[in-house]
């Protein structure tokens, strides 16, 4: 915390007098400063998160890894030798008999090398390997879905907040807004029942047909897309409402602004006022909103993947919880937090580029 506030003081943009340097230089200087500051904050968040993840098992006074390893060792089996070795390594590096400080530094060094450890349940495989494989599925689905939902929802909200919209729009979109209150995984269950089970139009579960092996053929791509449609719609339906509500509020707020009245008085075309004046200004807080709900989107998707047995991070997380594979669970939590903090950092950095009014920010 002290580190952060010190940094903030040192790097806070000094008052730049308008007559020195071109405005471009000022802008790039502040942006550079701002980027450094945001990046330090990103590191700070990751560090705190990693520390919290380190502390939680120590607070509980239990050692889930050791317990699990003991259990596996008692059961015996083919993995015995590997487990023995692993138990020893674990004891040496993270064992509770080591001084707390040694445990902490070992953990942090591993993390900074992005080494998340070895899975207990799928023993020879590393957590990195497991998480990376499923991450592809999650990112592919989530990227598409988030962008689609953002565009559709923002458009819907823009029309809902526009006084000159056709009257029937309200009756079409208002039920959609209510959908945003329903958790995504419940929509997922309804979609599975109606479209996959009753009508049989789309596959019930999984990321691709169990009989095929992942390859790059056209058939496989179509298969993957067919499997992705239902999970995607489950997320899009409820996310549209969220974006639409935010956008509608912002559009209503722009109505009273002087520039809107002026644009109207100049006799500009309605479509131009709508796109260039109202939507352009209302859009910006939506971008900040994206940064704020990223965590909710990710956790929502984790559960949707669980419902569909989609081979993404959510399904792996569920398997790991069932097998109490502590390192995989920890790895997934770290990767998700890294992802969210990284995306927030990117949005923060891009935001001043989207909004030229933010030239000097002293936050």
């Amino acid at each position, binding site marked *: 915390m002290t580190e952060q506030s010190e940094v903030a003081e040192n790097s806070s943009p000094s008052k730049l007098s308008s007559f020195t340097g071109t405005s471009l230089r000022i802008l790039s200087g502040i942006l550079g400063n701002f980027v450094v500051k945001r990046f330090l904050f990103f590191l700070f968040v990751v560090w705190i998160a990693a520390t919290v993840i380190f502390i939680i098992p120590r607070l509980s006074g239990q050692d889930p890894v050791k317990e699990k390893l003991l259990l596996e060792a008692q059961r015996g089996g083919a993995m015995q030798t590997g487990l023995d070795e692993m138990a020893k390594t674990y004891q040496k590096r993270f064992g509770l008999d080591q001084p707390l400080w040694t445990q902490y530094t070992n953990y942090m060094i591993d993390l900074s090398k992005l080494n998340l450890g070895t899975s207990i349940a799928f023993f020879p495989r590393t957590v990195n390997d497991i998480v990376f494989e499923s991450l592809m599925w999650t990112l592919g689905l989530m990227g598409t879905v988030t962008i689609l939902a953002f565009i559709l929802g923002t458009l819907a909200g823009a029309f809902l907040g526009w006084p000159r919209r056709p009257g029937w729009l309200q009756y079409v979109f208002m039920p959609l807004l209510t959908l945003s209150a329903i*958790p995504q995984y419940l929509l997922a269950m309804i979609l599975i029942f109606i479209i996959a089970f009753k009508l049989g139009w789309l596959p019930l579960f999984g990321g691709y047909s169990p009989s095929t092996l992942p390859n790059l053929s056209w058939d496989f791509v179509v298969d993957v897309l067919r499997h992705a449609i239902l999970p995607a719609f489950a997320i899009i339906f409820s996310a549209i409402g969220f974006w639409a509500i935010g956008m509608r509020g912002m559009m209503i707020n722009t109505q009273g602004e002087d520039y809107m009245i002026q644009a109207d008085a100049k006799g500009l075309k309605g479509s131009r006022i709508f796109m260039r004046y109202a939507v352009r200004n209302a859009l910006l807080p939506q971008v900040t909103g994206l940064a704020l709900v990223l965590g909710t989107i990710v956790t929502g998707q984790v559960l949707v993947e669980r419902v569909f047995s989609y081979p993404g991070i959510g399904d792996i997380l569920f398997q790991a919880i069932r097998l109490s594979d502590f390192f995989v669970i920890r790895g997934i939590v770290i990767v998700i937090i890294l992802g*969210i903090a990284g995306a927030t950092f990117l949005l923060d950095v891009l935001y001043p580029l989207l909004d030229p009014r933010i030239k000097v920010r002293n936050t």
Partner: protein
Amino acid sequence: MTDSVASPTQMNKAPSGGWDQFNEERIVPIKKYAVRNPSLIVGLVLLFGMLFLVGIGHLIWDTEMFRPLSTPTRLAPTAEHPFGTDTQGRDLLAIAILGTPLTLRIGLIAGVVAIGLGTVAAFLSAYYRGVIDGAIRSIVDVGLAMPALLILILVRINVGRELSTDEMGIAIGLTSWVFPARTIRSQVLVMREQAYVELSRLSGTSGMGIIFKEMMPNLIPYITASLVASVAGAILASIGLEAIGLGNLSDPTLGMTIYWNIQFSSITLGMWWWWVPPLVAIVIVFVSLFLISSGLDEWSNPRLRKRV
């Protein structure tokens, strides 16, 4: 959404005590408000309607049948078991009657904890500023970047035993106070610059006096709206935790019912009676909380009042 049409009150009819006067003074303003703010009323009616049904259910139904093996398994709805039974022999009507209030209880506990902590943090932060503000803002900023559900999963894995519903509520509350803290803080920041707060400060009211006598009463609508939103968020988190297998296996909450449904793939077995009731109950809970929260928003933030 409005079923009732606003009828202009008959002004020439003088209130003559008794029912007429009561009608004029109490009922008519509520009716007028209901027309102006339908989502609040519809939400409240939905929520309390459901609780009313649950209450009746408690009186007329044997809720002990929520335990596994207390009925034959996999029965479609019949007169004897109107909601059918599941693969493990639970009566699903008993589950619905017990689970709905239990899930709401988790949400309420978590919501109260989160809003309590959030409000205290917000006031400390916004009113006293300085070092406290810096510390609280750092915690809030970092907390917002960490999804509560993941932290809860880690905590639950490390506790190593099943949490009771109340413990789960408290745990969810402890991990979800940062968002309300942030939004309430910005409200307090605006408020502390207002003339009446300034006046109160000049006339020598203490910091606590200003917070409790001047600011709190004005913030109560906003805090109530945040509370409702927090309760909804907490219920979402609890059902998420339960659906992923970290709930209390012996509790008949709505989330656990969803968990068993996924576990025994009731959808592909065609056992619609198993997953429809908890799903409908959850949808009603969320839609009613959503409507109440947006209705309260409208009440607490007059700037939002229907300009469109």
